[in-house]
């Protein structure tokens, strides 16, 4: 079963890290991705640029409206994600709890919903 682990951080906290602390965190994160890949758990993992670079789109009266900034204005924002394969929620929790950046925020674990096209149905 697939789970998306969204890594939620307070960007101010991450920006407060010294350069060497930030680099150590990146190294640790990459090493963790590698360990998950070896164990057959990793489907995808990426970190995201700051929310100051985010653009949000909506459809308003048939037209695309574009605004600067993230969907929700809060202190804590999605800073990255890993998409994993896990046996069940317990295993997903186990994996998510070791994401290095969790020390600076939180990880939200969401099961992936498989959509089936009507043509694929019996």
């Amino acid at each position: 079963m697939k789970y998306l682990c969204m890594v939620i951080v307070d960007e101010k906290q991450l920006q407060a890290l010294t350069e060497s602390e930030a680099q150590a965190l990146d190294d640790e994160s990459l090493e963790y991705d590698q360990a998950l890949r070896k164990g057959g758990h990793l489907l995808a993992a990426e970190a995201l640029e700051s929310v100051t670079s985010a653009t949000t789109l909506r459809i308003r009266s048939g037209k695309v409206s574009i605004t600067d900034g993230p969907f929700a204005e809060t202190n804590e924002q999605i800073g990255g994600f890993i998409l994993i394969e896990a046996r069940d929620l317990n295993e997903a929790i186990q994996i998510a709890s070791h994401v290095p950046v969790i020390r600076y925020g939180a990880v939200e674990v969401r099961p992936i919903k498989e959509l089936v096209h009507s043509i694929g149905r019996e």
Partner: protein
Amino acid sequence: MNVAERPQDGEIEAVYRAESRGVFATLVRLVGDFDLAEEALQDAFLAAVEQWPRDGVPPNPRAWLISVGKFKAIDVLRRRARADRSVKELLHRLEAAMPRPDDWDSGTLLDDRLRLIFTCCHPALSFEAQIALTLREVCGLTTEQVARAFLTSPATIAKRIVRAKQKIRVARIPYEVPSRSDLPDRLDSVLQVVYLVFTEGYAATSGPTLVQADLSGEAIYLGRTLLEAFPDAEVQGLLALMLLHESRREARISPDGLPVLLEDQDRSLWKRELIEEGMVLLERALATRDFGCYTLQAAISAEHAQAGTAMDTSWAKIAGLYDMLLRCTPTPVVELNRAVAIAMRDTPEAGIRLIDSILQRGELHDYYLAHSARAGLLRRSGNRREAHAAYALSLAQSEPARRFLSTRLKEMADTAS
């Protein structure tokens, strides 16, 4: 050979009471779904009501019920599989797995009950949902009984349970006892649920006893089940705590329904056998030297249980235990209880000073029991005037709750007429 006998009056009901939750726990494991297991359980008992009077009670009713329940679940799935392809896979798996004798031995039964408890108390579910689900699925209370116990509507409880079951299914919360590395934390959260169920039941001092589910009894049952598998200090400590409190149930309410303070209770009404059982567990927990808050609370309760009269209470020991408890749970309420113990050990004034310092920090100011404890100590020290003021304050703090309730009462009376 075992010859089946016709059921006596009430025998099937007795089997239902004794076996239904265990059979349910095993069926959840076999069919992998709460609702399907419940349906299968009801179908199996319906079959029993039809067949046992005719054919006699089978030699092993639990094995019979699990086996019939499983086939009933297969029937249900067959009907559904016609409409839904995803059900077919589960159906094939279930059909292939024939009932095995170890599906109903006592070790499997305990494992299945534990799986059910840990699934219902999974920390990924809200605490309220954990409690509702545990009472409904593990203890077999009806939705109405759970609602009544928590003073909320059956619709609210039903919604909570439906959502929780949906999360179990969609997020795939496994039906298993946690692995050794997760066990300490997971056991803690189960103990929290058990203790809350107990205190809710213990605090419920009124209500028609026939419809009021015995929550304290259910909590003790859960504690015993956990202890069978995990002889940990805190499991023993919590069960000891519950048994020691439970022993005073009758004595703590006067015939006209008012609460009776510990020091005024008729100690001959205390249930000796519960106290003795609690004491044995407590001693074992203390002997591990690896105990926590529940064991300490049990130890405090035990000091009271062992005192022949209120005068004989060893307040020095109790104050010492509160010192330890305060390190383990540093809350103002524990601090308040410690202040009272110190007042009893030393002088009322010593306790009053401690309570005043808690109140000065701005904590417990709205907690009427803090003011009534202070009033009690002032009364003891002979300061009637200040005691009067403190009691008045205590009454004033409980006033908003009283006013809220009387407004609601009036509202109901108005709409009813």
